[in-house]
């Protein structure tokens, strides 16, 4: 018995920080789904299992649903078994599984709207779908009774959706699944979905493949499906992690301590992604302090480098730096600016409680602080230390630009 086990496709999901380009990332998932189906066909799997959360929500728009069904329909030799998860639970008429596309779905698609089992190539596929978004019940408990009804010696594969009951890592109402759930129900394999990184427990019998398409920089174990081969009841499953994800999420650093070295390193890293720039989500964290002479060209270079990547973001955490001599020169040559820098520290200390390490010899009066804060177009209750750092950087930046 051969299976392709996937989960958490979450078609139609939301992407923060990408604005209108998020739509492209959503479209990419449908391509990945087709690639996974192709993989299943190529490996002649008996079942293509989706262990919950095919969709991000029951209320995804119709074109996403029809596109998914169309993808399955294009692979009629692949038997697709879909389990409703916590994002797309079977709740009745409003459920995505009651859309016309699924009600009239081709024969190779089977949606487990209720708990049950189906025979697959001499073995049995047992399903425990979700009907709500939250529950403290372990959905794999149903397998215990279900398995007893089936012929002894058959290969048993369970499919469900929920968090793994790892102490300290799950919410009690998030469908906690016992880590020995497969053994408990005498299953040969228990395919679950929910978390987005690859996980294996219960001596290799309990597998959570993670999302097939990464959706944040933090998901390092995502982008895979599982290819499972069962050699008979009681034999350990043979599980292969198959990468199918098309979008690569990468974070790079660019430190101004060594601008030239950083340039070379980044250029090399990006080169690998340049062949498919639309399949890369890049974040460059620019850090360190430098003068305008260094900063401005560095920013310009980075802008050029990232221009081909439509899913790129430059996270500028740099600051304009003045040497001690420059700072002394500023204070001596432009006493008013020196006072303003001290004033900024004073106002920041007053407004957001920052430590004032540079007290002015002639500090502003409270009414003067009030006046300048009231004139500026942000409510003072919303101010953070970053605002004052921005003001300081702005002053120094403008100063450097003119000197």
């Amino acid at each position, binding site marked *: 018995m051969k299976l392709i086990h996937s989960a958490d496709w979450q078609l*139609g*999901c*939301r*992407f*923060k*920080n*990408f*604005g*209108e380009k*998020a*739509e492209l990332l959503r479209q990419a998932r449908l391509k990945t789904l087709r690639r996974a189906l192709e993989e299943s066909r190529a490996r002649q799997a008996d079942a293509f299992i989706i262990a919950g959360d095919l969709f*991000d*929500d*029951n*209320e*995804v*728009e*119709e*074109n*996403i649903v029809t596109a998914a069904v169309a993808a399955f329909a294009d692979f009629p030799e692949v038997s697709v078994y879909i389990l409703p998860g916590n994002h797309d639970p079977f*709740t*009745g*008429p*409003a*459920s*995505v599984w*009651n*859309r016309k596309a699924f009600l009239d779905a081709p024969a190779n698609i089977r949606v487990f709207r209720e708990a049950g089992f189906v025979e697959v190539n001499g073995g049995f596929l047992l399903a425990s779908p979700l009907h*709500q978004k939250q529950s403290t019940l372990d959905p794999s408990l149903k397998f215990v009774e279900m398995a007893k009804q089936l012929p002894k010696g058959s290969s048993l594969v369970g499919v469900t959706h929920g968090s793994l009951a790892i102490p300290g890592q799950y919410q009690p109402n998030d469908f906690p699944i016992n880590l020995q759930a497969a053994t408990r129900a005498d299953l040969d394999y228990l395919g679950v979905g929910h978390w987005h990184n690859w996980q294996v427990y219960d001596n290799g019998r309990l597998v959570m493949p993670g999302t097939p398409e990464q959706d944040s920089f933090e998901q390092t174990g995502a982008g895979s499906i599982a290819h499972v081969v069962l050699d008979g009841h009681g034999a350990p499953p043979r599980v292969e992690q198959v990468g199918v994800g098309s979008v690569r999420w990468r974070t790079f650093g660019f430190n101004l301590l060594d601008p030239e070295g950083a340039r070379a390193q980044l250029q090399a890293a990006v080169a690998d992604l340049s062949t498919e720039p639309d399949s890369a989500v890049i974040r460059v964290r620019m850090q360190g302090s430098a003068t305008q002479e260094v900063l401005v060209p560095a920013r310009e270079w980075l802008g050029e480098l990232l221009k081909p990547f439509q899913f790129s973001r430059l996270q500028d955490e740099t600051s304009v730096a003045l040497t001690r001599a420059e700072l002394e020169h500023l204070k001596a040559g*432009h006493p*008013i*600016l020196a*006072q*303003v820098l001290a*004033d*900024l520290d004073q*106002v920041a200390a007053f407004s957001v409680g920052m430590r004032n390490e540079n007290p002015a010899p*002639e500090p*502003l009066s409270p009414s*003067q602080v009030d*006046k*300048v*804060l009231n*004139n*500026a*177009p*942000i409510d003072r209750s919303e101010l953070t230390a*970053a*605002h004052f750092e*921005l*003001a300081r*950087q*702005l*002053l120094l930046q*403008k*100063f450097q630009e*003119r*000197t």
Partner: protein
Amino acid sequence: MILETIELKHVGPFRNEVSLGPLKNGINVLAAPNERGKSTLLRAAARALFDRYTCKDDEIQSLQPAGSDLAPAIVVIFHSGGTRYRAEKRFLKNPESQFSEWRNGAWQLVAESDDADRRLQTLLQSNVPGRGATKAAHWGLLGYLWARQGDASEWPIWEGETGQFIQTRLAKVELDPLVNSLRDILWQEYAALFTEAGGRPRKNGELERLETELDQVSGELAEVQRKRRGAEDLQKRYSELGPELKRLEMEFQDREAGAKRLRGEANEVEAARSDLQLREGEFAAADEKLQAVNADVEKLRIHRKDLKEAKRALIQAVAAEKAAVAEKAAADERIAEAQTVFDSATARLASLNAARQRIADLQNLKQHETELAAAKQQAKKAQVQGAVQKALKAELGETPNVTPQKLSILHQVEQQIRESETKLEALGLAIELTPENDGAIKVHRDGAEERITLKARAKRAIHAVQAAELHLPGWGKLQVRSGATELRELQEKLDNDRADLRESLVEIGVVSLADAEQALSHRKDLQMDLRSAQEKLHGLLGDFGSLEKLEEHAAQLAVRVGALRQSLSPTGPERAKPSTDLDVQAEQLKGRVKGQQVIQADASTDLKNKRRIAGEKSEARGNAEREKINLSAKISSMEQQIESLLARYPQGIEKATKDAQGAFVRAEARRNEARSRLPAEYEKLPERSRRATQAAEEIRAAAERCGNEQHRLEGALEQAGAEGLHSKECRLAERKESLRTQVDALRARSWAARLVRDLIELRQQAATRSVLEPLEARLSAAFAEITSGADRRVFLDDELQIVGVGESREAAVGFPYLSQGAKEQLLLCLRLAVAAELSAQGRNLVILDDVLVNTDDLRQDRVLDVLRGAAEHSQILIATCHPERYRGVGELVEIRVG
């Protein structure tokens, strides 16, 4: 800069060439009457110094002579930085500009046209607007030192680069172009997104566009989220409905089964109840029949017993009747005897009463006769006394009606007459005669003539009221008359009083006062007699009140006496018998009547008793007879009833009783058996069955409603699910995030720009403020000299504007609240102070064009003192139409033609 000469041609009233100057370094007074072109000349010089020669603004055209198209041409020669310059401009027609410098004893052309204008601007630190004529704000320092006509109480705002520059120079702050540049750049960055005044996002700016879209997206997102919440609520309700529907359906099944069972039981009970009703009917009939037979048996027993007793009573009643008849006869005999005795006593009593009545009538007659005689006597006396009273009244009516009051008035009048006469005599004439011989004379006085006898040598006084006429024998008539008015008036009064007295006496009916007094006395006597007669008559009449009533009483007595005499017809002895005898006889008869009345009463009582006894005996006899009859009838009736009862049961009453008892026992057993077949509380079963059916129906309806709602929710949820709200929410949230990031970044950067810029400005102002002191001191000193107020200071603000005047900044009177005179004097002092402060770079020109129009003479002198002091380091040009105000000060200059 100081001014040397101004030359004009084709300007305002000057069609030909005119010139002013050369001016001195100190005070120059351009004095001329109004409308002689003083201000026009100065204005034209300003246009030549500061405006582009190509300018065709109205301001330039107004320089043209009225009604002409002549091109205004102006030449200004001035000194700056120790060099002598010449600016020459022609406007409008063939405009041209030349800028020359005095070198080596001759004018050297430095620049022409635009270049000349630019050189001039650089030299004067002025600028020009994008289009149109310049304003004072463009004139550099001169813009502040030139007090133009009509602007005496306004100080130009320090604005623009020149203003700032001068401000800085005044405050002796080193110019830091980098800081200014930073400040301006930051402001521009801020102002690109926000309005300068209100701090709001600039209309149609990037920030406003983003925030508008953000609001729109937020609104749409909220609407989608609202819809999603609605769908979630529907889903929740739908989830609840499934179990609810199942529960209802199960309950319906239970209820329906229960209702069916109860219906079956109710039907069985109904059949059993019908049987029971039948059995109960049979039982009731048997019971009724048994009771009827038992009743007849009891009746028969009673009838037989009563018949026996009635027959026994009849025998007794016959015996009683016989005894009662005998007793009645004996009683009747005793009544006859008692009646005889009673009749005898009654006759005797009647005889005694008749005798007693006659004696009483005789007594009555005698009393009436006595009273009649007394009444007649009394009436006679009253008649006599009435006649006396009548005569007295008649006499009183004839006596004059004098009352004491009237008499008193008459006495008063007489007294007045006497007093008047006495007065007259006292006032009147007194003629004393002492004849030598006896004789007599006639005296006529007061209307009367009198003869008076005189004796020789005896003095005789003759008095008269007013006049007297003496007839002296042998001598003739001598008339003596008094002329006194008082005497005449008194005489008139006396005459009036006498007339009044006479009228009063006539009215009363008497001749004299004495008659009146007598009449009054007589009237009193008569009235007393009359009262006495009335009292006597009253006593005679007594209670009768009048003579007529008394006479009527006597007549009534006479009638009664006549009637008694006729009815009694008394015998002679009876008439003769005195009243005393009659009283004795009457008393004796009274005793005898009483005794006879007792005898009669006893006889009557005895008779009544005997009659009562006889009545009782008669009643007893009647009763005995009726009892005998009744008993006979009763016996007959009982015998008939017994016969009738026995006739009902031909088979015999004992057998009938036995049959009825057997039927009753059987019916009772059948009824009990039917009753035992009914369940407990069988009466409530129909109601329970109905209730169970209704409950089942209600549950069925609730389940139907639940199913309908579930069906409706299915439709709504299918529709909501198909809307793709999650996808819409995703896109909107993503867009909102993006917009929010952009807006926050823009706002943060603008905020930072504004904050830093404000801090720079704050620090610049503080620096400026710290060096304001010298300028304030110079200004205060000048103003104190004009106003003699040494204890007052003038205060400037950070913008070098006058805040006010006072002993301290806090207590200063604000500039707007000062008088017009004080304002123009303060501004004059400020101009002179500014010029003095900046004099280190050379003298400065101060132009005062018809200012100090509100300054009094005293202060005017002090102003001249101040001007004289200022003239040591400034050139002052005063244009005025009041030359007398500046007489003795500086140089007088005039506009020269040619």
